[in-house]
């Protein structure tokens, strides 16, 4: 991954990010709408009432260029890139059920001069309420400069503007950055499109699945298999800087967790031990790895520096303590334990003190994950079927997000608005990755080349 992003600091021809800061930074909807009241879904506080900004018509014509020339990008020339980028932005918004986007295929082209001075009457006549204009130009060293601007058509006002320089192989990131700019400005939420997902690609018969570690962009593009499938791979997690992936492999005949260096294409054991190790997790600052280790049949949670070295044992009860997800400030860990007789969710301080149970709903509660926003914990509730659910960090306010035969292992989008999980089909055992909005709406499948499970979502890329 050769991401060398150079922030544009000085240029007289391109709208500077700095000028975006002089614009109003409040979301488009009035503040009152954001202080949410509980609705029939039981939404409170943490999820804003999005009905006001969700229905905005937003037109996204092809990005323009002042010079249609070849580029090193897979999408083609600067003009073709302009089309492709607008399509990626449109798909990002459409797939996530955001706004009412109209993409470049249905829209007139925009001359380069209008990028910073739109012809609002044209767009108003088309019924657009919001408008995206953008530009694509070649930069030094084969790189690309992409500019992205959001306009309020009714007010004739620029709401946001930014530009980025990417290598030609990373042009999709410019599109995602633009989608993030638009989304963040209109909703008041944090961005999430410019991110990657690590997961397990599955093929083969149900009783002998081939499982390979794989990675892809948040929209499923730029897919890449990492392992060959010769040794079963499970439960991967991207490091916060995207340089490493921790995962479980049967490489040496029994389950052990490894840290894989993506650039170097090499890996090492997380813990130098002959005991089986499972369930690797990163701390939000990337400095620690949590893992679970079984000794004489009992599994407990340990913490080790990401650089390696000796481990610190955090739990010490007979039974199974496994998993672990840090709160975003790194001070607490939520994990699962059956010390009380069945799988339930517990919270402890990051040093292992203060362990207490928070799930008291009946059935079993597993795979807890702390929202990046800090306010909710997503988990798998097992009561007959396996369902994705969320609860407060004190275990209150259980709310189901899905209702199928077997949904498990939720992880969060970087902005804590979307929960991603995998679904197993009864009988066939086919698996697929799904996402659902925190409101429970817009449940949709993320397309993958073959069956897919164990998805984990990395943070917004810098």
């Amino acid at each position, binding site marked *: 991954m050769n991401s060398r992003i150079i922030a544009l600091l000085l240029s007289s021809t391109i709208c500077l990010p700095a000028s975006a800061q002089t614009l109003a930074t409040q979301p488009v909807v009035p503040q009152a709408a954001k202080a949410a009241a509980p609705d029939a879904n039981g939404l409170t506080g943490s999820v804003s009432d999005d009905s006001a900004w969700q229905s905005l018509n937003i037109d996204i014509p092809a990005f323009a260029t002042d010079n249609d020339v070849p580029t090193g990008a897979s999408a083609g020339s600067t003009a073709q890139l302009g089309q492709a980028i607008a399509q990626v932005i449109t798909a990002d918004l459409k797939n996530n059920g955001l706004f009412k986007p109209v993409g470049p295929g249905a829209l007139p082209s925009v001359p380069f001069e209008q990028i910073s001075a739109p012809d609002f009457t044209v767009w108003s006549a088309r019924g657009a309420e919001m408008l995206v204009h953008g530009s694509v130009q070649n930069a030094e060293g084969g790189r690309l400069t992409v500019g992205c601007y959001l306009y309020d058509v009714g007010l004739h006002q620029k709401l946001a503007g930014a530009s980025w320089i990417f290598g030609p192989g990373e042009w999709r990131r410019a599109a995602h950055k633009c989608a993030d700019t638009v989304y963040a400005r209109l909703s008041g939420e944090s961005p999430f499109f410019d991110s990657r997902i690590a997961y397990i690609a599955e093929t083969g*018969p*149900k*009783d*002998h*699945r081939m*499982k390979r570690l794989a990675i892809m962009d948040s929209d499923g593009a730029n897919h890449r298999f990492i392992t060959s499938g010769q040794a*079963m791979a*499970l*439960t991967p997690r991207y490091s916060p800087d995207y340089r490493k992936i921790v995962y*479980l492999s049967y490489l040496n*005949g*029994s*389950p052990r967790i490894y840290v894989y260096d993506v650039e170097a294409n090499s890996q090492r054991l997380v813990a130098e031990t002959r005991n*089986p190790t*499972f*369930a690797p997790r990163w701390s939000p600052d990337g400095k620690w790895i949590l893992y*679970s280790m*079984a000794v*004489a*049949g*009992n*599994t407990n949670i340990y913490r080790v520096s990401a650089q390696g070295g000796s481990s610190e044992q955090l739990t010490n009860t007979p039974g*199974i303590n*496994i*998993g672990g997800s840090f709160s975003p400030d790194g001070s607490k860990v939520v994990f*699962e334990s*059956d010390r009380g007789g*069945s*799988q339930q969710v517990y919270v402890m301080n990051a040093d292992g003190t203060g362990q207490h149970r928070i799930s008291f709903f009946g059935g*079993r509660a*597993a*795979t807890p994950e702390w929202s990046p926003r800090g306010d909710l914990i997503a988990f*798998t509730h*097992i009561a007959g079927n*396996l369902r994705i659910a969320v609860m407060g960090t004190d275990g209150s306010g259980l709310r189901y997000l899905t209702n199928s035969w*077997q949904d*498990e*292992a939720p992880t969060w989008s970087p902005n804590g608005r979307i929960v991603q999980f995998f679904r*197993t089909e*009864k*009988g066939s*055992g086919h698996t697929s990755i799904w996402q659902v909005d925190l409101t429970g709406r817009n449940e949709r499948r993320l397309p993958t080349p073959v069956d897919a*499970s*164990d998805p984990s979502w990395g943070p917004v890329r810098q």
Partner: protein
Amino acid sequence: MPHLSRLNTATFALVSAAALLSGCASKPPKQLPPEPGPAATTTTTTPSPDSTSLQAGPPAGSQADFRASLMGQDTIHFELDKYNIDEPSTAALRAQAQWLQRYPAKKATIEGHCDERGTREYNLALGERRANAAKNYLVSLGVDASRLTTVSYGKERPLDTASTEEAWAKNRRAVTITVD
């Protein structure tokens, strides 16, 4: 086994008799145990070859021989979410131990498995727990611990791929595999 300790002997006999008669709903259909024969009462004889004297049978002391001799008792089963060794399992483990003591140089791996109706990571740990329970029981029967290793496959390697209670009961298992 914690749940048995609360029963007195008479109740225990009654319960286990009833269990044998009713064929516990959660258990898969069991094969009848092998007829008692010379191999069961002595500790040092080699197993008798296949009853058809014309065939040689699997090599004595091989994994194929282990499987043939054990006739399904190389595998023990577990209740949902449990890892304790129940009565039929003790019989199977005794049979395993007898064979292993006949070939004291042989090592074995015990695989622990779960059914698909649980989450992946917990099932990896539970499979390890089940394998360990079987290992501990074999050790208590006199098999040297250094001969035994455990490996968990969680829910990754079902024996029966159906999504039914019957299939799941078959999949909740620990399988002993000797190393050739």
